[in-house]
Every structure is written in C-alpha cells, then in structure tokens.
C-alpha cells in the first residue's frame, strides 16, 4: 500500500520541526524526513512538504526572509509546481509569502504582543488536499503562537483573494461567528490560512501539530494530516 511520505524542512532556528513529525506519525503512522535547509533535493517519494514553525534565522531581517533564500527552496518550488501539497505553518507561512508561493505578508499583531493561546478557526473549504476530512463551516479549536500573524494584502488584492475563495481558515467564536472580536491578531476578515489558486500550497498561522492529541487539549488538527494522507494515496492510486 502506498502511503504519504513527508519532508519537514529544518532551517536554523526552526523549532516546531520535531513537533510536526510526532504529530504526523501519531495520527497517520506515515513516515517523515527532517530535511536540512542546505540540501538541494527532497527525498525521493516526498508527497507532502512542510515548512514548520519557529524562528528561522532568528527572524532577523524580516520573518522568513532569510529562509526563503535557502538552497532547498528551489526544490520546494519545483515540488509545488508539480501540483503536490506544500504546507507552511506559522513561520512556514511567512516563508511561503517571502518565496512568493503565496501572496501577501504577515505583520505584527495589533496588540504588539506575542500571543500564545488556543483559538477557534472556521473551515472555509473542504475541497483542498488539506481539508478533505473536515466539513465546510466546521469550527476547530487550535493553538496559535506568534508575534507576526496579521495577514496583509493591499485592499484590492484582498478582495480578489476572497472572491476567488482562497481563504481556507478564518478565526471565529466557538460557535463559528467571525469578526474582529474573535480575531486575536487583527488579521483582516479574520484570515488565519490561505491557499494558492492551484489549491496545493497552504499557509496557516495556527498550529495543527499542537492539536493532534487529546492529552494536549485538542484533536481538531488531526484530520488535516488525515486529509493530506488520503489525498496523496488517492493520487498515488491513480
């Protein structure tokens, strides 16, 4: 049986790399490779590529800016253009915007505080490789931990992004109501995660790997790993 194989890219300063590996292994039992940023190729049979959270290069210069120049990035871009899934979590999301695989930028939270907390996000699309095991409108309880998580895109482009339905996760109340009051970092339209037009590159500020065990307070992130696994198996089966 063919299964998903994941490459987690490790930059100097990444600190959620092992967390992601544990979460994927615990919830899908599939294999994960930690791939050092200086490599120029991904391991053979890589299905999913993850840019993990942390402080790559200490967030110096600008979050994600230095990581975006790493030798491995060309291979990541090639992987994305082949249509296979790429996921950026937190700092990984920032890196994806720096590479240009996703539009926009992540700016400082409006409170100017680092925020670590459980929050709620609403699933806006169930037709992506990452969200197939969720229902549209479902509310997930999932942690965030960031200082720069306020998504920014010039107004017109933001409108286009919304019109094209590229927002995958939105901050909300436990009941699924969106709005400023339920957006911890001041992100416009409560944007917590977006996807590219092609539908295979997802960037999100919340940490699904921190919501994959009931012991740690939530299982709501686990279906995301299951979704990608199913999607990849489906594709391999084709």
């Amino acid at each position, binding site marked *: 049986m063919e299964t998903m194989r994941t490459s987690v890219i490790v930059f*100097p*300063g990444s*600190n959620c790399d092992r967390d992601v590996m544990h979460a994927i292994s615990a919830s899908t039992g599939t294999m994960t490779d930690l791939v050092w940023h200086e490599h120029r190729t991904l391991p053979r049979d890589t299905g999913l590529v993850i840019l993990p959270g*942390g402080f790559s290069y*200490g967030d110096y210069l600008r979050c994600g800016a230095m990581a975006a120049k790493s030798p491995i990035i060309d291979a990541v871009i090639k992987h994305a253009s082949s249509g296979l899934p790429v996921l950026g979590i937190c700092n990984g999301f920032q890196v994806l915007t720096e590479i240009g695989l996703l539009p926009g930028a992540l700016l400082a939270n409006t409170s100017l505080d*680092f925020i*670590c907390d459980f929050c709620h996000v609403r699933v806006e699309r169930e037709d992506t490789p990452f969200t197939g095991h969720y229902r549209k409108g479902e509310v997930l309880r999932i942690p965030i931990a960031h200082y720069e998580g306020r998504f920014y895109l010039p107004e017109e482009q933001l409108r286009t992004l919304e019109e094209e339905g590229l927002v995958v996760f939105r901050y909300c109340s436990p009941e699924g109501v969106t709005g400023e009051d339920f957006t911890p970092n001041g992100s416009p339209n409560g944007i917590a995660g977006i996807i590219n037009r092609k539908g295979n590159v997802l960037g999100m500020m919340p940490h699904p790997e921190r919501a994959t065990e009931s012991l740690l307070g939530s299982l709501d992130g686990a279906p995301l790993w299951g979704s990608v696994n199913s999607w990849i198996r489906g594709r391999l089966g084709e």
Partner: protein
Amino acid sequence: MRPDHRAAGLSDAEYGEIVRALGREPEHAELMILGVMWSEHCSYKSTRRLLSTLPTNGEAVVQGPGENAGIVDIGEGWGIAFKVESHNHPSAVAPYQGAATGVGGIIRDVLAMGARPVALLDGLCLGEKSCPEADALADGIVKGIAGYGNAVGVPTIGGKTLYDRCYNGNPLVNAMCLGLVPIDGIVSSRTARPGQLAVLIGSRTGRDGIAGAAFASSGLADDTRSSRPQVQIGDPFVEKLLVECCLEIHSKGLIVAMQDMGAAGITSSSSEIAAKSGTGIRIDADLVPLREEMETWEIALSESQERMLLIAEEGALEEIGSIADRWQLDWAVIGKVTDDGLFVMTKGGREVVSLPAEMVGGGCPPVQWPSCKPSAEAEGQERPSDPLDPGGTERCLFTILENPNLAERSRIYRQYDYMVQTNTVVPPGNSVSIFRVRENRSLVAVTMEVDPWKCSLDPFAGAAETFLKALRPLWVSGANHLGMTNCLNFPSPEDPGNHWILERSVSGLAAVARDLACPVVSGNVSLYNENPSGKILPSPLVAVVGLQDCNNPPLRDRESIEAGSVFLVGDIKGTLGGSAFSRIITPGAEHKPGCYDPSKEKDFMKRALKTVRKEAASAGRAIAGGGLMTSLAKMCITADIGIGLDSTVLDTTPECLFGEWGPRAVYLVPERSTELFLSCWEGFPVRRIGEITPGGLTLEGHEMLPEETRAGKAGRKL
C-alpha cells in the same frame, strides 16, 4: 599601575590570604580574576556554610548540588535536570536583556548536563503596578523572557509572579529550566584528563558583561545607567543553534566534560573543570575568537552569552568542528588540560595568569557575618477577628480578587510560547504545571513558590510554608515530589538582622526538605538586593519537581461538573499572618504567623495522593493565597460552575474564609464518590461545606461573585 585590591572587590583579609597562598603578590590580570571569582555571586562565601545544612540526598537524586544542575530519576533510565537561577541585578538595569539572558543562562546550565531543555518557569517579584518605573521594568522583563524563550523553542510552562513595593527598584527575576537526559548520558564537569583539549563553541567574545558577577554582589547604585556595560546581550537564535549543536556532538559521544560560560566566562568555566577534575588547564587568550580587541583579563572575564566550553580528545576534533560548522557556529580550540593543577592564561606566549585552579574557584575563605534577631516580635495576644457578615465577605473577596497579586495572569503567560515541543499537558494558569515525557510515557509536575510576606513575619515558618505551598498542589494533583531547587533572594548579609533572617529561612527550608524527604538538588543565592531607597523582603523562592502517578490522570484544580459536594479538608480555620487578607483588607493589623507541623503535612500528603489514586474526587485545590473563599471563587470562575456554601458548617470569621498557612484543600466530589472520598480522609479534619450549583458562589444565600466580579476575573475563555 597596580590596581588596588579593594577596587577589584577583595577585602584586606582576602588579599592577605591570596598573597600567603601564592607566596607572591598577584599580577594585574590575576587580581582582576580573583576579584570576580571571590565575589559573593561566584564564591557563595557568605552562604556556603549555611547551604551545607540543606539535605541533598534522596532516593530519586541522581545528581545533587555541585554541578551545573541537579538531576532526579523519573524512571526507565531517564532523568530530569533542573535548576533555578537569579538574574535580578541585570534585570533592574536593563529589564529586557537582563531577563532574556537569565533565561539563556539557565538553559545552558541544563544543557551542560547533557540534557535537552524541555521546559522553563519564571519567578518574578515585581514592583507595584501603580509605580510607573516599576511597571515599565515589569513589562520589559516579561517581554525579555518571551523574546528569548519563544525564539529558543523551549516552552515557558509556568512560574510565579507577585507584586510588592519593596521590589520597585529591585525586581527579582528567577529563571528555571528543566531538561531531559538519559541517565547513562549525563555529562559531568569532573571528568577532564591531562592532554585533552578545551574547545569553545558559540558566540565570539566581546566586552559585554565584564565583571557582571561582581556587579551582582553589591547593592544597586542610585544611577543604574552607569552599570549598563555590565549587562550581557542575548541572542536566542545562536542559543538555539548552540543547544542543537552541543546535543548532536554529545549524541556522538565526543564530549568528555562540558561547562556553560556564565558568570566570569572563560575563567570560571575552565578553572571549575580543572579544579573538579583535579587537573590544571592552560588557556591561550590569542586563540579565543574575539569581536573586538581586548585585554587578557577582559577575555578571561567577559560574560558574552551563548558560549559553551567542551573538553574533548584531540581525535574528536575534526568531527566536532564539522558539526559546529554545519550549525554555523564559531568554534576554536582555546587550550589544553594539564596535570599541574594550575589555571594558566597566556597571551603572546607569555603567562599572564598562573593560579592554582583550586584557589580560583574554591579558594575564597568563607565569611561569617554577624547575626542578630531584629527587634523582638510583639508578644501580645492576637485579638480574635470578628465574624464577617455576607456583605462584608463579598466586599473582601472582591477586593482580594482585584489585587494584582491574586488576579489572573494570562496577560503575562499568553506572551510566552507554552506549547512548543508539544508536551505541555497542564499549561500556566493552573496550580501545577505538567509536561509529558514521551521517552518513558511519564508526566512531570512542577510548582514554584515565593512568599516574602510570610517570610518577613517569621523567616523559619515562612520559608517552610513557602516550600509547603510548592509541595501541596503537587500532592493534590497526584504527583510524588522528587526534589527541589531554590533561589535565596535576600538583601545584604552584612546587616546582622538580614543575616539572621537568611539563616532562619534556610533552617525552614532544611526542616521541610528533611521531614518530607524532598532533597535540595540545586540552587542559587542572590544577595544584596537593595538600593538606596530600600531593600527587598526576604524572598526565598522554591521550585519542586514531582512525578505524576502514571496510572491516574492528574487531578485538576477545576472541573466543570454538574453536581456533587464541596469538601474542605484540614482545619476549619487558617491563620491570617502575612495573608492576602491581612495585607489587603486590614493593613497594619498585627496578625501572627502560622506554625509548621511536619506530621500533619505528611498525613495530608498521604491522603491527598490516595484521593487521586482512588479517583475519589473530580477536582482539588490546595488552599493558598487569599484563603478558602479565593480558592472557591477561582474554581467557580475558571470552570464556570456554582457553589452553594453551607453556613451551618462554615464559620464566617476571616480566619476560616480568608486564612492561609497549613495543609488545607477544597475538593469537588461527585455524589457516588462521597463514601470513598471520606474514607481517604478519615482521621483528618474533613467537612462537607457545600454543593455544586448551576451558578454563583453563595454563602447564606448571598451571592459572593456578582456578574461584575466574574467579568474581569475570568480572563479570556477561548
């Protein structure tokens, strides 16, 4: 010109001892080095004798005091290394960097044991919120801890924060780190052998934090700005690389001995390794990678952050170098272990320093400051307090919950990444912080306490109570304590009254450590916490590490249950001395301190642990700051339940409702478990004081938590 030994920080007697032991006058660089190494911060000269009275042995102790951190056994070949260390003086001068480098330093202490840092806690004693300068310091300190801890990827899972006027210019920042280490992979600093090499890995050495240890050994001046060069600058990114790099080198078995470069930098790390290993060490100052041109003594004493000293065989060098290169860290062989027992530093081939290694680290003669009990305590009988009426009780509770010392802390801990590494089972904001160890499927519980008000009232009983306040929540949650670490924060020991208080406090800690079999495995001393406008209250801080019984989930201090009884175990009345009630509601009233009763504590411990083992309760909370009513209010607010109190059982004196001290706890017990619960506590004072209700906290039908009280206190409930 020969510098004056006093300017270097040495007393006439100490200087005489140096000349006697060397048989000559020390050279300039030697004098500067000895001035720092014989400072209070490095030598513990005022407290060494006192500290030797603390019990340090126990079943679970793998490594006691004397190494970079203590280690306790958590089973299946795994150990937890832990230690708390102060960074008080730097934080008073440069709050962000002071607190940040405090976190960095304690992480490297744990790393030096070969352990992977897995959790951080912080004890913060801050000035009044109403004082703008103190509030700015507090904000900088919290931001510094967040800035460093978050980036380095070690979760900050708990701690203790309190506010008092005495900390306005003297904030206390005590950082604690816990690390996970395979017991057969513990690194020691006593294993160096002649011929091996001294390798420095990490940041380049610069002129920051020079003689910071000496700076931490005196009171703060009026104008702290002139002390800024003595504060170090931290870089959490380099620290993260350093942690991963050293652990990788260690995993290949290439490290013989390791020391972090904290206070007194190269000097202390290398001379300590030499002294503990019974060898000598020869450092070539020309080989140290520098950021700027520096004098030899500056290189010797620089406290530049994010550096580790490794002792390794020559044959391991190539591999060590390639690992360090991959982590993009500077590294250099800076010296060699020798067999002559000397700490030597050369510059341009010339010996600039040549001192017995033993003398540098451990040669400072102990100092015995005079002790004298301050003024006699008031001997009059404490007048029993009048009972409170329901309205009065509500007002008192409201005022206490409003006080920053009792208020909810999410404003602080939400700035810390407390979940990274995905092991945090019980996060900050609870009575106990708990993390999971994947390697042996265990749960490790940690608590931290400091109670300056009780210690100032009675240093022996107050320090004992501080220790017990850290132990009781562990027992209630179902954890067996394994060991403790502490930080003795006090003002100048040269004042006989201060010294007496310090001695009595240590006796209090020693008594509990002995009676409850909770050994001291590591610790730190910070004296001279004073400035021209005042000194701190005695503030010994205690942190205890425990192991959760693996067959039962931890008992939480809150639970949203719909029905059941509320039980009070322990005496119906607490004691008001040094309590929140006494400080906030009746300031100036002379309330007496409580007293320490070891057999009662032991009895409480056994029953609390049994309660968890038998699964006889749904939630439990040891009564601490603010007393019974505050504990109940916090349970109601955080779990969104109601409690109706039975006024025929409770008495309405402040001692009962707001008293502190001693083993008392409240439990929520479902109806079906009542008998089981009572059997756990048979023979110990236990009373059913109320029942779970749909909402509110009522006493004699009077609502104690009206909506406006609840609103501000609930924190964020996402």
